[in-house]
């Protein structure tokens, strides 16, 4: 039996060798960090490395420290609330925009508008941050110049934390709506035309056709994409927050998320114990959520689950 395994492997040695580069890369950049999660229980000493450092005494000291921090709690709350906001608004926009585009009869117009709305997907959040600055800056931002021209008070966006959940939602929608629409539009165009023909013979209005044919047909896609997004609810898009908000600490009450909190603890304040404890909890909750949402997606549609 054991001989058989070795013979099989030896027979396929070229194949194994061909897989080796990816295997090594994934090991270094994915598996080692997984093992490195133990750092949350260690008193990290840079000269000894992750695995050589002493265990924390008491073992959960990093977590005690984390749980007593208001900033950490705020980051968790912001991550979940903002993600719920992004997922909900995103769903409405993407499905809505796909339905609208699907109604357009003019092929040329459809293609041009799809190209334009897909364009923001191709630029980095850094560039989006510059765009936002053009609009929102207190002195030269276009919005404040507009407000001034109609005689209103300018708004100092970069110190108004309360406005940023809205601003960030708009930014995400601006960047990702065209991209997200593609999948829904693909699902819509794959609906058999005879459904609509039969409905219109029965006198259904266009609106009724959307309500009773298009939307039910989109349901599996909607559910699965939403489930997968919920699986990532503990993970914020670091790039967006760092590029849009950056070091504007006045905005942190509504925009500081787990990922930016961990980054700051790691790179700025050098508080590796707290950063690793927060990261450990984030990873653990993410494990559970990913598995649960995948399980649910699999129940609904076998092909669309990741595993």
């Amino acid at each position, binding site marked *: 039996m054991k001989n058989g395994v070795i013979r099989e492997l030896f027979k396929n040695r070229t194949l194994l060798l061909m897989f080796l580069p990816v295997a090594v890369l994934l090991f270094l950049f994915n598996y080692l960090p997984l093992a490195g*999660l133990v750092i949350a229980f260690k008193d990290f000493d840079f000269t000894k490395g992750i695995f050589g450092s002493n265990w924390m005494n008491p073992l959960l000291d990093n977590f005690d420290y984390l749980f007593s921090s208001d900033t950490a709690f705020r980051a968790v709350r912001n991550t979940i609330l903002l993600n719920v906001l992004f997922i909900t608004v995103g769903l409405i926009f993407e499905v809505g*925009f796909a339905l609208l585009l699907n109604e*357009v009869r003019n092929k040329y117009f459809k293609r041009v508008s799809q190209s334009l709305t897909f364009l923001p997907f191709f630029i980095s959040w850094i560039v989006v941050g*510059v765009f936002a600055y*053009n609009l929102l800056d207190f002195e030269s931002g276009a919005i404040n110049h507009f407000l001034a021209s109609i005689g209103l008070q300018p708004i100092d966006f970069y110190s108004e934390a309360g406005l940023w959940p809205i601003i960030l939602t708009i930014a995400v929608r601006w960047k990702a709506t065209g991209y997200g629409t593609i999948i829904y539009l693909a699902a819509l165009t794959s609906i058999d035309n005879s459904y609509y023909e039969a409905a219109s013979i029965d006198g259904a209005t266009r609106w009724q056709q959307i309500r009773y044919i298009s939307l039910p047909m989109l349901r599996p896609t909607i559910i699965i994409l939403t489930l997968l997004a919920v699986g990532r609810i503990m993970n914020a898009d670091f790039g967006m927050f760092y590029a849009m908000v950056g070091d504007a600490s006045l905005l942190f009450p509504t925009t500081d998320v787990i990922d930016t909190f961990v980054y700051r603890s790691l790179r700025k304040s050098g508080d590796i114990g707290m950063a690793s404890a927060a990261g450990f909890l984030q990873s653990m909750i993410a494990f559970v959520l990913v598995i649960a949402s995948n399980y649910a997606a699999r129940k609904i549609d076998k092909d669309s689950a990741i595993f």
Partner: protein
Amino acid sequence: MLAKKISISQSLIIIIISLFSLSCLFPFIMVISGSLSTEKDIINYGYSLWPHHVTFDSYRILFLGSNRIIDAYGISILVTVAGTIMSVFVTSMGAYVMARRSFKYRNILSVYVIITMLFNGGLVPWYIICVHYLDLKDSLWALILPMLANAFNMFLIRNFMHSIPEEINESAKMDGAGEFKIFYKLIMPLSLPVLATVGLFVALSYWNDWFLGLMFIDKQELQPLQLLLRTLVSNVEFLKSSSNASAMQRISAQIPSESIKMALTVVTIGPIVFLYPFVQRYFVKGLMVGAVKG
């Protein structure tokens, strides 16, 4: 009556879509306009869709004033080209092994890859391993290696390769070709559509990446373009310390900091916007494949 009703809702739909489409385009026009504006106009009128007085000073200062922009451009191009070629080669080679039906243990390899999509060690251990164990700090490899192997792309390629009939492998084997030769000479050319799509996605993420630079690159001369843009946005003063400061002074007594930021933004997104019309459909195709089979 009915025809009129339809045309009203049709035009309403067209208006909504047009407004949103234009709002996607406006910021691009605004940076281009800002980069061509004089500093005075930006201060007086704010950012607008059309420059009041057209000037190319900011571009002249940008390229004259700092070798760093040329350097950063070079680094971004190098990282994008090298990273894309290596990534496509390594991931497609791995995907080929996972797709090889005659290989008994291919599913174990697939599980090995899937696990990386599900479980994530997070930033802290990842960072420490890259810096402490792999010594990637201030190295160009830091901008390439961490993104090289991508599980999602591997499955995209593997699924495509599944559609290539296994008989091709068998007959090539009869002719005495080894596995690597079969992959390189037969399977790779046959997989060109999916490799092109994956390659474009990879190239885009390398070009747009600044996170790896932020984490690992402290040396200024190794900064990629996107990171330089961020540095410039938060601090335009560094241009003054460059060796060509006096030449810049001749163009403009005061550095037009706002329009320079805009010029660098235009330069950063230039290649993407330029290539966009040609490559867009491959991305759409890739997304569809990912949506159906991901």
